[in-house]
């Protein structure tokens, strides 16, 4: 048995490329400077295909497929941008904005938010879907951090980093569909959590203004999740 991964040849946007058999379309695309928008993906964390922004067309597949969790296959023909895909991506983004209360102008992450940036990149200037205006809580019980569920997009990066990198497993998800909520421990106030180590990794990985540091509010918020792949290597002793 060879320890070397196999090579696959596939076509992305009309260009033939090669990739390892264990790579996803997203990884292969990035290696070849093809950009696909993402939100729940973060280098160093496992892939979940939660946000669906990375949907791509694969010839022969009946539906659009999420590039981050779809492995490359030999002879695959992938289209990453088309009018249909662009429309889907914009609609997904509109659904995010309509689902909760995203008031960019007064948000702590204004100017440093991946959701806001995506709206700019994808050219989304307004939302056609009716806004839901749910009543969602703000949990400020932790001495250093606050979670505002109005700004959460349920990307689950916080859940994954807390589980995979820190190992505390403080963050989890409860509920289904529109009732989903990220929770600390068994839906206890974050400040009462017995598992949280206050490491702040969830703050660094949160793409929006949902989880943030209290004292930083008002300052220019800059997240630094670049350390994650390194931490992963150190933890697991393997290539990412």
């Amino acid at each position, binding site marked *: 048995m060879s320890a070397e991964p196999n090579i696959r040849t596939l076509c992305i946007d009309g260009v033939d490329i090669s990739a390892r058999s264990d790579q996803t379309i997203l990884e292969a695309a990035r290696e070849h400077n093809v950009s696909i928008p993402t939100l729940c993906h973060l280098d160093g964390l496992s892939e979940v295909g939660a946000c669906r922004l990375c949907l791509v067309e694969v010839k022969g597949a009946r539906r659009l497929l999420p590039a981050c969790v779809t492995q490359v296959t030999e002879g695959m023909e992938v289209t990453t941008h088309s009018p249909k895909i662009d429309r889907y991506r914009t609609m997904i983004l509109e659904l995010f904005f309509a689902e909760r209360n995203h008031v960019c102008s007064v948000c702590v992450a204004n100017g440093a938010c991946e959701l806001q940036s995506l709206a700019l990149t994808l050219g989304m200037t*307004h939302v056609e879907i009716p806004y839901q205006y749910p009543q969602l809580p703000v949990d400020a019980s932790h001495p250093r951090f606050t979670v505002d569920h109005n700004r959460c997009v349920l990307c689950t990066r916080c859940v994954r980093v807390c589980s995979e990198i820190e190992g505390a497993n403080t963050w989890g998800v409860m509920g289904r569909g529109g009732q989903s909520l990220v929770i600390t421990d068994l839906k206890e106030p974050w400040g009462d959590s017995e598992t949280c180590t206050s490491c702040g990794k969830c703050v660094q990985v949160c793409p929006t203004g949902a989880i943030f540091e209290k004292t930083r509010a008002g300052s220019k918020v800059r997240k630094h999740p670049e350390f994650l792949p390194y931490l992963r290597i150190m933890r697991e002793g393997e290539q990412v």
Partner: protein
Amino acid sequence: MSEVKTLATVWLDGCSGCHMSLLDMDERLIELSSQFQLVYSPLVDRKIFPERVDVTLVEGAVASEDDLKKIRKIREHTTVLVSLGDCALTGNVSAMRNTCGPQPVFLRVYQENADLHRQVPTVGVPALLDRVRPVHEVVPVDVYVPGCPPSADTIYQVLSETLAGRLPNLGGIAHFG
């Protein structure tokens, strides 16, 4: 030489910040003014919205019965309707009362935070809508300009384009917030 277009500006439920950003064009406003006639605006004394306006900039969300009547009339008499700023586009801060509705607002403002004659005003003032709404939920919009407020440069771009008869797309150029 392009013709002089008729321009109107209107504020609904907003803070006037978008209008201030328009004025932040400084001298460019005066330069541009040779291309338009300001026929209706908080800055001029025309009291009736004209029969036909080429371009109307609308700031603010739709929050009261008056806003509703007004925006419908404006849409009817306007060729190019521009939704200016986050309040008009998304509801923004004006829509923050939507999670509780107008009743708790009245209770706080006119009962808890008042000392004398506690009551909800109803004489000569319009009823508040149950939900504050973006402009395009009420009438079709031709141009969307994000920002809180949109920068003076962006507004200058929008004005130049619409006065020249084009419909600019601000996607990828201006962002919320």
